[in-house]
């Protein structure tokens, strides 16, 4: 009787069919056995330009085109393979040394096997994405070969063979096949096909089978700039040898298994959250978990247990007798671990003597306190769910460099101090200490073993000398993960062919004019900061016969040029926002669009998306409509110009009158907003003035607020709110909106207490209105800046506003706390924010201008977009601020100025002073006050620090102080920063 199974003999196609069996565990806990049939083909090309037979058989698309062959006919050779070679790395090679493959000096003509690619995706998604972008770059010539689908290279797993062994065998098989296949081409110089692997067994097997194979180190040594490249082969490679040499005792507790953590989290015994390190104390971390209103504290190296800022970790709450107060002390890693030797890994104890001393202080303090109620729950890290390691910018700690290393070329171990203070020192092994000292370098963390005090990393590349503008700017961009590479060709291909010659079509019959309103006759103008090139918005107003006003906000019609889901759209959605640095702008969209075709430049016709209101003289909305339009801006004003024009009584032309109307209406709008409880918050903002030629910073100015700024702001807010209502009405599930959550009351606890204790002000936080009112009352008649100071501090207690997709929140949660608006979105800056572009598309669909694109309607897709742009938005802000801080430091360089400052925060061994003139804050430690360090008494109840001994001062919170601001190169972070010296206390 015939078998029901598919037998090899009976089926003529059996050789072409294989299957893959595996177990899949779903999120819901289901466990399934999956069987995938694999249909093997023989027309998957080798993609070598040498090969004629593949060119004939390679499949063609519907238009009869073939994918172009990638691998060069004359690949580069090495000392061992002078005839040229193609590389076939295995998964480990990519996992451990992706940075090598991204080098431009070597690693061309690489065959990425499907089996390797899939394994990489399972092991590390970021690395996988980097590899994918490598395969897309044309110059690197990376080719993905689907070895599992090609008949000759497919192998079935053997009985008792592990998955890894099978995959290694598949790699060897593919290498062997490539070798034979290329010999058959009959080319004069047949390139060698070389397997790259760090797996000894794999290399041994390859040798046995006669396949050319190298370990990474062997291979790199054959290249020209071997020394630089050798550094990029990570630590873990020689781990075996290190282990044998020094069987270090584990210093840190072992992590729980993943399933143990997940079970614990589900049952509520453990908690999962993102680990944050305190910026003032590297031994103190906190983690916000849903189960508790306040963040959990994680104190000490052992409890932090190798977690690094940003990691997604699981923690266990410690028993109550170990609960502590958050530290009031500044503990800087550099100061304490200064003298550690990177080579000798003292295995005895993780907590060094000095660290222990610092903690002792803490304990003594807690014990001396009677106020037990202040103790906060503490926790310890028991496992890491997801590492959030990225590449870090830092510099080599000069003191960790041994003298001999300065000259020799031998591998040396040094410490790298990351620019980000929250990241611990990283141990780095390098052969080029001499070159790298004094440079900004980019490194990655490879691992953090239980037996190692510090994480181990490897060198990626050098950004240049410390404190050069190029290096520092690039460092900032890298630190804040800003995509600053030039736009790839695929993106530029999406631009209109006419380039700068593109014009609004003259004939109104042109398809571009379909459903567009002709608003060219309106007196429209734009008001922006000086030198603004990407003009998103323009305004107009005119009186209506019935006594009401028509007001229009016209926004650049970016969605006309950026169609959903093309390469440009994808790139923009990844970049998320334009980043403004002091001397540089990193655009979200290519220049051509941002500064020309979309930009609502004066005197030319441009496509726009208009919001037109009829407003009553009291600025109540009578009605609103939205339309795509064509406009012609009459003038592009700067805020200052517009202000002058409004103030100048002699100007009586229609344009000026219409600005005055807008001004009058905007003031009414603002009053309404404030009445509703909108907060006016503050952050110390300054502007760096640059010399126009050299763009060297020469002065720092605080920003002046003009009425015209608030004019533009009010109408933009109005437009955003109107659009938000409209798109929410049209797409209740998928509208892209922006919310600002009400801050938890506990956020204000400390500030409220400080205000009560120090100044007797009550801060009420029941609603944004109450908060706004109580902030208004915090006035010190003697000190006009005091109110701003309080607002700055209150701003820091707020939650961050975020984009979201309307289906993910209930309507009451839509509220924008700061603006006191029920619903809000971003619509008015599509050139520089991706969220606005999405809102444009949704609004266009809502008014029936175009059919809604599925990408703008899919909730999952939108949630992903929101998540990304929230992060990008935040990073862009931070990068911008960091850039200003850097330039402020540069502007102060070599000068010493005496300024007034205010005490923002007090620790038991130092205090933080804000200097409003420069918008900077700096820490003044006790030891900076005088030498020897004065003794100090810190009273946490009254926020007072009293020093005695070598210098006697009393510093209180909110106090006005006179400080001398100088610049100083921070020897630890390598940043030029400001240093403040306390001159006197007012």
């Amino acid at each position, binding site marked *: *009787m015939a*078998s*029901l*199974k598919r037998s090899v003999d009976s089926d003529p196609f059996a050789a072409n069919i294989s*299957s893959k*069996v*595996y*177990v*899949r*565990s779903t999120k819901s*806990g*289901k*466990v399934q*056995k*999956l*069987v995938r049939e694999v249909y093997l083909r023989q027309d998957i090309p080798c993609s070598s330009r040498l090969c004629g037979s593949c060119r004939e058989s390679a499949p063609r698309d519907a238009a009869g085109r073939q994918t172009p062959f990638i691998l060069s006919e004359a690949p580069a050779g090495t000392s061992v393979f002078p005839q040229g070679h193609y590389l076939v790395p295995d998964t480990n090679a990519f996992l451990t040394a992706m940075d090598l493959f991204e080098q431009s000096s070597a690693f061309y003509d690489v065959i990425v096997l499907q089996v390797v690619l899939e394994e990489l995706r399972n092991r590390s998604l970021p690395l996988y994405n980097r590899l994918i972008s490598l395969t897309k770059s044309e110059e690197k010539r990376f080719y993905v070969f689907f070895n599992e689908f090609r008949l000759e290279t497919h192998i079935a*797993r053997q*009985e*008792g*063979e*592990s*998955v890894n062994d099978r995959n290694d065998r598949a790699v060897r098989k593919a290498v062997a096949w490539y070798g034979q296949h290329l010999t058959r081409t009959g080319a004069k110089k047949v390139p060698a096909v070389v397997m790259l692997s760090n797996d000894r067994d794999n290399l041994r097997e390859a040798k046995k089978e006669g396949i050319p194979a190298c370990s990474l180190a062997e291979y790199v040594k054959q290249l020209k700039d071997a020394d630089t490249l050798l550094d990029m082969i990570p630590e873990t490679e020689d781990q075996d040898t290190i282990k044998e040499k020094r069987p270090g005792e584990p210093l840190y507790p072992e992590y*729980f*298994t*993943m*399933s*143990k953590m*997940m*079970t*614990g989290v*589900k*049952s509520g*015994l453990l908690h999962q959250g993102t680990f944050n390190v305190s910026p003032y104390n590297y031994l103190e971390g906190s983690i916000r978990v849903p189960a508790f209103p306040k963040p959990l504290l994680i104190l000490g190296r052992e409890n932090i247990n190798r977690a690094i800022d940003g990691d997604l970790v699981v923690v266990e709450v410690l028993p109550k007798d170990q609960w502590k107060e958050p530290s009031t002390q500044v503990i800087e890693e550099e100061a304490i671990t200064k003298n550690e030797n990177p080579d000798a890994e003292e295995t005895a104890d993780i907590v060094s003597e000095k660290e222990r001393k610092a903690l002792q202080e803490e304990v003594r303090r807690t014990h001396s306190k009677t106020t037990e109620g202040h103790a906060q729950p503490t926790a310890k890290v028991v496992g890491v769910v997801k590492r959030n390691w990225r590449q870090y910018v830092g510099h080599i700690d000069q003191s960790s460099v041994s003298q001999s290393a300065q000259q020799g070329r031998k591998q040396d171990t040094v410490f790298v101090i990351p620019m980000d203070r929250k990241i611990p020192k990283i141990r780095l092994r390098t052969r080029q200490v001499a070159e790298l000292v004094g440079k900004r370098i980019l490194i990655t963390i490879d691992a953090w073993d239980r037996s190692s005090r510090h994480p181990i990393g490897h060198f990626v590349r050098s950004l240049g000398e410390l404190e050069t503008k190029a290096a520092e700017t690039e460092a900032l961009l890298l630190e804040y993960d800003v995509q600053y590479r030039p736009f790839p060709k695929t993106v530029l291909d999406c631009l209109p062919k006419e380039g700068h010659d593109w014009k609004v079509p003259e004939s109104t019959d042109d398809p571009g004019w379909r459903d567009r309103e002709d608003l060219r006759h309106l007196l429209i103008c734009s008001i922006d900061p000086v030198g603004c090139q990407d003009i998103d918005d323009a305004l107009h107003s005119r009186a209506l016969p019935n006594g009401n006003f028509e007001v229009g906000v016209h926004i650049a019609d970016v969605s006309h040029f950026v169609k959903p889901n093309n390469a440009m759209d994808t790139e923009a959605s990844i970049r998320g926002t334009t980043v403004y640095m002091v001397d540089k702008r990193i655009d979200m969209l290519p220049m051509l669009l941002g500064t020309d075709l979309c930009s609502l430049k004066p005197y030319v016709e441009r496509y726009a998306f208009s919001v037109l209101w009829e407003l009553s003289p009291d600025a109540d909305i009578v009605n609103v409509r939205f339309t795509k339009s064509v406009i012609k801006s009459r003038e592009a004003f700067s805020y200052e110009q517009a202000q002058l024009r409004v103030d100048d009584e002699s100007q009586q032309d229609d344009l000026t009158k219409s600005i005055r109307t807008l001004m009058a209406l905007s003031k009414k709008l603002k009053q309404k907003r404030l009445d509703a409880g909108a907060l006016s918050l503050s952050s110390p903002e300054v502007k760096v003035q640059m010399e126009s030629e050299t763009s060297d910073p020469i002065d720092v100015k605080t920003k002046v607020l003009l009425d015209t700024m608030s004019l533009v702001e009010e109408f933009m807010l109005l437009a955003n709110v109107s659009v938000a209502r409209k798109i929410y009405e049209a797409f209740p599930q998928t509208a892209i909106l922006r919310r600002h959550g009400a801050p938890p009351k506990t956020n204000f606890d400390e500030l409220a207490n400080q205000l009560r204790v120090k100044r007797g002000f009550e801060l009420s936080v029941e609603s944004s209105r109450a908060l706004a009112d109580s902030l208004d009352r915090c006035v010190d008649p003697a000190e006009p800046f005091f109110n701003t100071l309080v607002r700055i501090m209150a701003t820091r207690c707020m939650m961050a506003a975020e984009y979201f997709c309307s289906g993910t929140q209930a309507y009451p949660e839509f509220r924008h706390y700061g603006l006191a608006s029920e619903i809000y979105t971003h619509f008015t800056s599509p050139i520089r924010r991706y969220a606005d572009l999405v809102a444009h598309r949704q609004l266009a669909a809502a008014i029936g201008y175009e059919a809604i694109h599925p990408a703008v309607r899919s909730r999952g897709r939108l949630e992903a977009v929101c998540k990304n742009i929230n992060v990008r938005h935040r990073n862009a802000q931070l990068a911008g601020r960091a850039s200003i801080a850097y330039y402020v430091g540069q502007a102060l360089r070599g000068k010493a100025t005496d300024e007034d400052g205010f005490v923002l925060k007090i620790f038991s061994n130092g205090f933080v002073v804000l200097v409003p003139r420069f918008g900077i804050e700096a820490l003044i430690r006790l030891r900076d006050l005088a030498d020897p360090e004065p003794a100090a008494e810190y009273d946490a109840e009254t926020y007072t620090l009293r020093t005695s001994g070598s210098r006697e001062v009393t510093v209180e919170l909110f106090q006005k102080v006179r400080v001398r601001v100088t610049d100083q190169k921070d020897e630890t972070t390598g940043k030029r920063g400001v240093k403040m010296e306390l001159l006197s206390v007012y």
Partner: protein
Amino acid sequence: MASSQHVLLSPAELAYLHASLSLTPPIRPDGRSPTQFRPLVAETGILPGTNGSARICFADGTEAIVGVKAEVERTAQRPGEETVFLEEGGGGDGDGDDDDDEEGETGAQGDRRKGEASWVEMTVEIPGLRDDDSGTAFLSAMLSEALLADGEFVKRLWINRRFHWKLYLDIILISPPLSYPLPLLSLTTHLALLSTRLPRLKSEGDEDPFFDDDWAAAPYLFPRSSSSSATAATNTTATKQPATATRPPITLLVMAFGNNIIFDPSKEELAVADVALAVSVTSSNSSSNSSGDGENDEAASAGGRSLRLLSIRTIDPPSRLTPPGVPNAANAAYGAAAALGTQKMLEARTAETEAVEGVWRAPRGGAKRMVLGALVQKTLERGGVVDEVLDALEGVDLG
């Protein structure tokens, strides 16, 4: 389906058949010996998407496939049962090979592993019959009874105190029911369970279960003995004895004709059986494992496995419904008093008359205890039919 399928045999044929089966030794219509099974074709792993599957085809053309699917299910918590999430130390470093220390584990944590009958769901499908047909329901009850009777089987489905495997057994007869399919379905189920594998557990203790995604690493529900498994090298007791591991139960159909005991009846044979029994048997090494090695060796030499009776069901033999033959004496065609009225004739047919040699008479009354005892004993005989069947099934290549 009912065991009493209509058989197109005349009373005379029935009587002949019965007589020949009652001879010593009995003569079966197809010439088999009393203990001989009909030839069959068997294979496993026919359904790639299942955890285990098998197909058996009897020579008479009846054919069945069984698929086993397993799903992780949360065990309902009983009050008072403490769940331990974060056990320190994780109990005795059981990182040996996970494939074959199944038995050892049973010993170590014997009291912890519990099972419930609801963890197995069995559906039987017979073509042409509704799934709530009494015959189908009875078959299904008998098959699951054999699995669940001693509670040992469901213990294998225990993952930890919070989770267990739920096993779905789909038993399908794919040919028309030519003979009573109980033995066929039971053997196919046995084979399917033998080939069933469950993903390898990676988590420890009472954590949410977490499994190895490598199917090749999945252990068998009934761990293979060393003869077929290459990975059992560490377990020395297993290597010594080739086939003593616990097997899934089998249910056999046994008949008695007078003093003759006959296995695996064909449809015709069943139609004349005096008594028909469904006997469920399992083989286990649990006793041999716990006792000393010397005894093990004895057991091995004596046939290798210890058989245990799980359940017995009497099957209503179809012979009861067959029409009785009419003795010539009462047959009018043979000149039996024509004067007797029709009324009398009917009486004569139904009346409890003395058995007449060569005249078919449906068996009456239950099985005698002696006969039952003999049947069971014959079944459990060491080196007997069950051993033979199990050996044969073990020979099927699991793939």
